[in-house]
């Protein structure tokens, strides 16, 4: 990959480094950082200490690199440039312009879709579990089930999570609340010959009570439940937790639900 690049830029300076970077295989999660953002030194505060050959790496990213050097050296600088790009990327994507770009990618499902069956292929967002580099690889956040998943492909699983950061996906939903997917109460019920498995069913009942508690907490705090439904299954204007069973039945039509659980 690196050799490709080296030979390419040596002969042909019209292809920009950032273009090449975001279009190369495995880097589908990244968006292109504006030139202006990169050239404003304020945005790069503190990165000098994080990145080796900082100045050369920055030159490479901004396509003004003109140092004659050994291939080994070039490779090192190249590596640094990618690391630097990732770190700046984490800062850029929480800016207004960066968010716009990431929203576009989100809408195109560039980050993949939620593997959870009941999330109905909800588009995911990349995120890190740490803002410090070299700690955790990138994970994918689903706005519908509010859980995080490992990327399907191993080439994505190697990306550093710090290149996206711990805050980006939450900020995105704060800035664009319209993109928050409607939550669902639908869930999977383990069954054996049509009978719910007792251990799972008992846990599900306990979780349903947790949910009822949450609903009550939100109601007590007067959080706009009148205008928006908390869960997509809610019937307008009423607390439908009581007909929970009916909804579960309606959503699992495959097996006639018996009223017994098995141990």
């Amino acid at each position, binding site marked *: 990959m690196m050799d490709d690049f080296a030979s390419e830029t040596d002969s042909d300076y019209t292809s920009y480094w950032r273009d090449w970077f975001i279009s190369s295989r495995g880097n589908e999660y990244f968006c292109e950082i504006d030139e202006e953002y990169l050239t404003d030194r304020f945005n790069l505060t503190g990165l000098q200490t994080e990145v080796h050959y900082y100045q050369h790496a920055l030159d490479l990213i901004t396509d003004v690199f003109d140092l004659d050097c050994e291939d080994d050296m070039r490779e090192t600088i190249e590596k640094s440039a990618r690391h630097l790009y990732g770190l700046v990327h984490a800062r850029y994507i929480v800016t207004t312009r960066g968010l716009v770009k990431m929203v576009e990618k989100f809408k195109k499902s560039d980050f993949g879709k939620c*593997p*959870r*069956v*009941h999330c109905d292929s909800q588009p995911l967002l990349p995120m*890190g579990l*740490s803002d*410090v580099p*070299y*700690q*955790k*690889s990138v994970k994918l956040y689903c706005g*519908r*089930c*509010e*859980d*995080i*998943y*490992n990327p*399907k492909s*191993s080439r994505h*699983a*190697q990306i550093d999570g710090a290149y996206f950061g*711990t*805050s980006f996906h*939450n*900020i995105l939903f*704060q800035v664009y*609340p319209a993109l*928050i997917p409607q*939550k669902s109460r639908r869930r*999977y019920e*383990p*069954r*054996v*010959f*049509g009978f719910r*498995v*007792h*251990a*799972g069913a*008992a*846990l*599900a*009942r*306990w979780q349903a*009570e*947790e*949910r009822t508690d*949450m609903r009550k*907490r*939100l109601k007590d*705090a007067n959080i706009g439940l009148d205008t928006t439904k*908390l*869960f997509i299954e809610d019937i307008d204007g009423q607390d439908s937790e009581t007909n929970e069973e009916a909804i579960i039945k309606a959503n699992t039509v*495959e*097996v006639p639900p018996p009223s*017994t*659980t*098995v*141990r």
Partner: protein
Amino acid sequence: MPEFDPSDMSATSSQGVDSWIAGFCNLTGHEYFAEVSEDFIEDDFNLTGLQAQVPMYKEALEMILDVEPSETGSSNLSEEEEEEEEEEEDDEEGLLGEELDQPVEGAQNGGNRNQNRRNGRTNSDTSVIESSAELLYGLIHARYITSRPGIQQMLEKYELAHFGYCPRVYCHGTKVLPVGRTDTPGQETVKLFCPSCLDIYTPPNSRFQAVDGAFFGTTFPGLFLMTFPELDIAPAKKRSRDNGATNEETESILSPNEAAQHQGMTASRSSSLTLPSAPLIPGVNTAKDERAAAQAAMLAALPPQPATINGVAAQNLAPGLGRSKIYEPKIYGFRVSERAKGGPRMRWLRSKPLDLNELDEARIYHEKYGGNVDGDPDDEADEEGGNIEDNEEEEGDGDAVMQSASTRPSSKRKGKPNSKSKAGIANVPGGG
């Protein structure tokens, strides 16, 4: 069902490497399938009712068993039945839909033999038989994997991780099991059930999106876990981490740095905490020891935990759920409030009580309404569980715990006596 004389067939059949069944299971996308033993297929009882579901049933069965179409076999069919069969074929053509599109290379050797059938079958007939054979094999397979030899075979496949791993981060690479959402063929593709979070996922590879879920059935994973209750479903990584070694397979999920990091952390953590539900909070490095200590203190304050709960070993009950295994959204290190518009609303889905006694519904019921699970005189009424809620702020002092213990169950359990009587309890006394 007079269609088949097993003794005739067993003479000619042999389950070799190039058998139809082996070929089918070796196809790309068929990695989840177990090889159904011929003994199982040859037992008519195991095929009860399938004749009505599969067009060209007899031919399909012959193909599966690699049996030369024999005059003796077909003469067992009366004229009427044969007509009936032809009608069914037309009726169920639509039902096949999905299967018809599947690759059928594996069926070639069987198909060739059918070329010189007595009726001189055409090519289209052969493809119908091939798809019928796949449908029939799938339906038999769904039954087979719930039988004793079949579930054993699936155990081997499970242990070799043929079905893959849970994609959920906090399940830490738990091995999953194939499951169907319906037992009717032609409706939904196969899904994967994770015993660690009790949820189902779409297989990561699109080649499995051509496999019918009914070929695995709704029952299999549940029955599997009941059949092997001693199986440790906790992920390989977590287990090996306890031994101080990192598992190769799960390591690929992480970057090398990350794996190294994990190993580094193991030492410090395992020394302070030896409980199986030791909190693992990835990404929160600051004050981890403090939090861990607080968690340990809280766990120590719990009443004695049951070894098994509701028929499942405690460490096998959704080990990927509960406190510290729920993703907590944060912005610049600050938690996003539940009251925010985009605040967390789905934590319930991944929560689990810290005190597993809370899930012992029968005991709680009998404490409230009297009586005993076994119908004996009540002798464990004063075993009261401290209720520490997963979602709530940690309660520091003992008084608060006591208080919640006395108030919570009554308020929470009220109005649900139905679900208790549903739970199959023999002795249900009147409300107390």
